[in-house]
């Protein structure tokens, strides 16, 4: 698993639960280092061990932890760069949904060896969608649920999201777009202010 993903999980645990939890995770997961380097690659089993250790230490279900990770990736100020990169996906939330299939390609444009989940979006009705998510990380669909919920907030859209389990090796997420312009949403300037 790419270091960027592992580092994102590490930062999420640190920023949300504090440095001492991360120290505990390092010990519990028997890592032989205390920090993931974002630009190196790691055995995928390590990622799973880290998530397993965190759920054990926090006594939280894996699904909710992963969903919180997804929300963190979009809404925490420490990962503003990622939120911005995601916002390049489209003008509105519906546009963004349609751009999801391009997400792994966009990731590779920036970091050629970055393996993001394969995403497949189909329209199941007016303003209803079904997202299929395939990843080496079990439960990646829950990360997507958290991320989509936070992105909907970011765009000011109102959505209903439902993780409907697994089918043919893909996690299924049902999406209902209830209102495109429900709230103001967060500002997004195409170009960063100089010095920002």
């Amino acid at each position, binding site marked *: 698993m790419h270091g960027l993903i592992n580092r994102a999980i590490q930062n999420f645990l640190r920023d949300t639960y504090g440095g001492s939890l991360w120290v505990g995770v390092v010990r519990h997961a028997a890592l032989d280092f205390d920090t993931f380097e974002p630009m190196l690659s790691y055995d995928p089993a390590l990622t799973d061990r880290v998530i397993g250790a965190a759920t054990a230490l926090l006594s939280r279900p894996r699904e909710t932890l992963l969903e919180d990770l997804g929300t963190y990736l979009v809404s925490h100020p420490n990962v503003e760069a990622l939120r911005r*990169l995601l916002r*390049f996906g489209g003008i509105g939330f519906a546009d963004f949904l349609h751009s999801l299939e391009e997400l792994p390609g966009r990731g590779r444009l920036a970091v050629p060896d970055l393996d993001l989940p394969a995403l497949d979006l189909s329209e199941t009705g007016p303003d209803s969608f079904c997202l299929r998510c395939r990843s080496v990380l079990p439960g990646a669909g829950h990360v997507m649920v958290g991320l989509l919920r936070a992105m909907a907030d970011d765009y000011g859209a109102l959505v209903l999201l439902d993780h409907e389990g697994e089918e043919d090796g893909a996690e299924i997420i049902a999406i209902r777009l209830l209102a495109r312009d429900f709230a103001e949403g967060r500002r997004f300037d*195409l170009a960063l202010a100089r010095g920002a």
Partner: protein
Amino acid sequence: MMDGGTLRPEPTVPPPALDRLMPMHLWLDPGGRVLSAGSTLAKVIALPPVVADEVPARLFDLFDLRRPGGVADMERLRAASGHRLYLVARAPGQPAFRAVAAGLPDGGVLMNLSFGIGIVEAVRRHGLTEADFAPTELAVEMLYLVEAKSAVMEELRQLNRRLQGAKSEAEERALTDTLTGLRNRRAFDQALDRVLNQMQVQARAEADPAGFSLMHLDLDFFKQVNDSHGHAAGDQVLVAVAQVLRRETRAADTVARVGGDEFILLMPGLTDRARLCAIADRIIAGVGRPVIYGGAECRVSASIGVTVAEAGIRHDAARLLADTDSALYAAKKAGRGCAILSGRGEMIPPTACPPGEAGDRR
């Protein structure tokens, strides 16, 4: 073969459709007057809206066509159809554009402009949004890439900084004796090499050369401390000796622990025998003070061999070390707890030191 005059109509594009496809177009009449301008372009160059009963702005009043050179009228603009054009808006502080022109049957010209490489600055300055670009344009992807690249570069920069820090730390560790914090054998060898090289460079440059001295120190009775009080006591003694050596030397000196109870001092620029004797005696006095460990008194003494590497002579590291070694051996033989100076092959006991500087020798 005309079939009753049913001429196929020329396709015409109404301005709103043109704007949707090319929000940075300019449509010019044969006189170079702007018949319609794309909404994004109009916003960026602050072009007043094209109104029917007003005299329209003229292309060459709005823009300076920089390249290819000489495109200063409509005839030459039509001739440049299909080529890449570079133009700059005449209003001050405006961005540069690249453009392509196509001649129209009525003698007019249709042009499409873009920001080219200056896109990030243009988007920032004019607060452009995705809606300002045609959905087929890769402008937004370009902006995405610029940001993604910067984010990745920042990660790499931080990685490099961490690696640099880890490297210096590892290098420092590789040169340090962990118990005493003094330099180790490796560090001493490097320091000796450095000072010998420096002497050669100075000799070649005929600069004022400086010599140096080596002091090889071996603890007496250290084995007895270890045997009767344990290794922890021995370690405590070594740490105390290191403190004495640090205290009696200057920052520029190299103080290394090179064996279990062996230390070497390299003192650049110091060749004065009287000063060397004084330092050796102070070290012997300091090391001779008992160390209390676990209520027990641990006593060692120091034997020291000293070699002076005079300036102006080509020295060999192995030879210098051998000289220092034999001086140390002589000091041990002379009854321990004393220093012997080996200069030009001869042994000079420290009793030859000027009176009053000999310290409390045993």
